[in-house]
């Protein structure tokens, strides 16, 4: 019976049953109807030792292919400093639960406070919560916040320039929650601001969601947009890549009320889609409508600085069906990831990451256009690390060829559009090689 994860010896079990006053383990389940006790065999393998387990995982890993990634679409192959993974393996961090007992959870509480501070720096907003599941669900929560902040308005307008994955999640949340969602088609690759404002004239729109950079990689210009939305008594949410905010105009500078996005770009391993984190920042006036955990600074009875979970009265364990959200945790360890990453990179490193990605992306873009087989899909529109081209090539075939050579080629968006991404991890040699393979196919 004894297993390395289950310490009970036969003698222990006997002693414990005697203390409890029952004969057998079966007696501990005598309140369960006999017909639902499972007497069959589970369809899972027999126990593996560590040696076998490692082998099994190695076999599975061998069926995957690590590629040189030239695609993004919401997950980017950024550099992860060695230090981050090492510190995340401190088991005092990863084997702890939500910091319910602040006296013995100051480690967690303090890094969340640092995380909130750093994300607030990036977004320019006054408040940030302890993190959300991912960028898409954070965007859906922003939609709830806007509706909750406007009492009688139940419609949200979303620009089609958000990534498809984000739109799909927001659509799902809106449908079941009972919010009317209007998706306004893009115009030349960017949000159709006029059409969005026109939608708002009906007076039932709580807010607008746009993104920057958008699904095509374009850095959109929102000059004057927030003021016009505010004049119509609506709110503005901007979904933004937090890494890019080190150099791009911030949601606060655009006048947004809420900023959301996916933290994956802060050096998080691709890991087949997760774990990453979502962030949500807002202006002080919307703080009480913000979902999730929030950490605040305070003092203990001896006057020492300390940190606590705060504003808990908004949360589900107190308000139940009247809570602002059903969120009752965060992606805490990934918030620690983001915090350590941003501490290492600092203000200078974050600028360099963007500069390298931006220069590499433009270098690739120019090289592809120079082949004569690609044209910019949206000429003149500025981009950072991701860009969209138009081509007549059979890109499914080109991508097959690239795969053979160990590359993940661009995302195929349909209608002849393809989207490439370049990070600081890509080298000029890799880019030259990519262009060479594509040229040969062409």
């Amino acid at each position, binding site marked *: 019976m004894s297993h390395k994860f289950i310490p009970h010896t036969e003698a222990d079990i006997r002693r414990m049953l005697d203390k409890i006053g029952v004969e057998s383990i079966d007696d501990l389940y005598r309140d369960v109807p006999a017909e639902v006790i499972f007497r069959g065999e589970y369809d899972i393998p027999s126990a593996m030792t560590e040696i076998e387990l490692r082998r099994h995982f190695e076999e599975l890993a061998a069926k995957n292919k690590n590629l040189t990634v030239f695609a993004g679409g919401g997950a980017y192959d950024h550099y992860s400093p060695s230090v981050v993974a090492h510190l995340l393996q401190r088991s005092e961090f990863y084997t702890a639960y939500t910091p319910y007992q602040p006296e013995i959870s100051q480690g967690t509480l303090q890094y969340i406070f640092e995380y909130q501070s750093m994300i607030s720096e990036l977004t320019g907003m006054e408040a940030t919560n302890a993190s959300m599941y991912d960028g898409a669900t954070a965007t859906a929560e922003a939609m709830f916040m806007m509706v909750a902040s406007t009492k009688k308005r139940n419609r949200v307008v979303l620009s089609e320039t958000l990534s498809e994955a984000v739109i799909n999640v927001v659509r799902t949340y809106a449908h079941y929650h009972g919010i009317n969602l209007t998706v306004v088609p893009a115009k030349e690759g960017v949000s159709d601001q006029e059409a969005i404002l026109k939608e708002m004239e009906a007076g039932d729109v709580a807010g607008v969601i746009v993104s920057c950079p958008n699904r095509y990689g374009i850095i959109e210009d929102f000059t004057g947009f927030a003021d016009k939305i505010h004049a119509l008594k609506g709110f503005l949410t901007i979904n933004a890549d937090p890494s890019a905010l080190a150099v791009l105009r911030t949601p606060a500078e655009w006048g947004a009320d809420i900023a959301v996005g996916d933290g994956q770009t802060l050096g998080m391993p691709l890991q087949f889609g997760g774990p990453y984190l979502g962030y949500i920042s807002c202006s002080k006036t919307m703080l009480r409508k913000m979902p999730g955990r929030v950490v605040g600074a305070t003092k203990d009875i001896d006057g020492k600085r300390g940190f606590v979970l705060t504003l808990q*009265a908004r949360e589900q364990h107190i308000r139940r069906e009247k809570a602002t959200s059903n969120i009752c945790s965060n992606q805490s360890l990934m918030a620690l990831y983001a915090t350590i990453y941003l501490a290492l990179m600092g203000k200078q490193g974050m600028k360099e990451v963007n500069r390298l990605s931006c220069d590499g992306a433009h270098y690739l873009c120019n090289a592809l256009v120079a082949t004569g087989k690609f044209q910019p899909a949206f000429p003149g529109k500025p981009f950072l690390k991701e860009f969209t081209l138009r081509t007549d090539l059979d890109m499914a075939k080109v991508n097959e060829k690239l795969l053979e050579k160990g590359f993940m080629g661009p995302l195929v968006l349909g209608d002849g559009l393809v989207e490439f991404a370049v990070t600081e991890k890509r080298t000029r040699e890799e880019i030259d090689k990519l262009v060479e393979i594509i040229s040969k196919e062409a």
Partner: protein
Amino acid sequence: MSKILDDIRYADSHEWVKLEGDIATVGITDYAQHALGDIVYVDMPEVGDEVTKGEEFGAVESVKAASDLISPISGEVVEINEALEDEPGLVNQDAFGNWIMKVKVSDASEIEGLLDAAAYAKICEE
């Protein structure tokens, strides 16, 4: 023992209301502030909002509890107690002195359905 004033009316959800002309001043009772503990936030309506008797118009929060505010009377909010935005703890200091909203009532007779001090005191004892 919580304080109960004689000259005003009460709702069983622990709000008090004082009617002067067609303006009703609304707050939470001393009993309610005691039960909640240190109040950290008062979620107030906006001036111009319509409130309805028996329906929620805001909430009071302490560190580990939150309680909806139920309007004891119907009408239009004409003033809110802005001092509570910065100092919600004033409600703990004096729940009757620190009102939450003033309402221009649409039907003054609604006040007749509310509890008097004696009836409210009985509820608090239970």
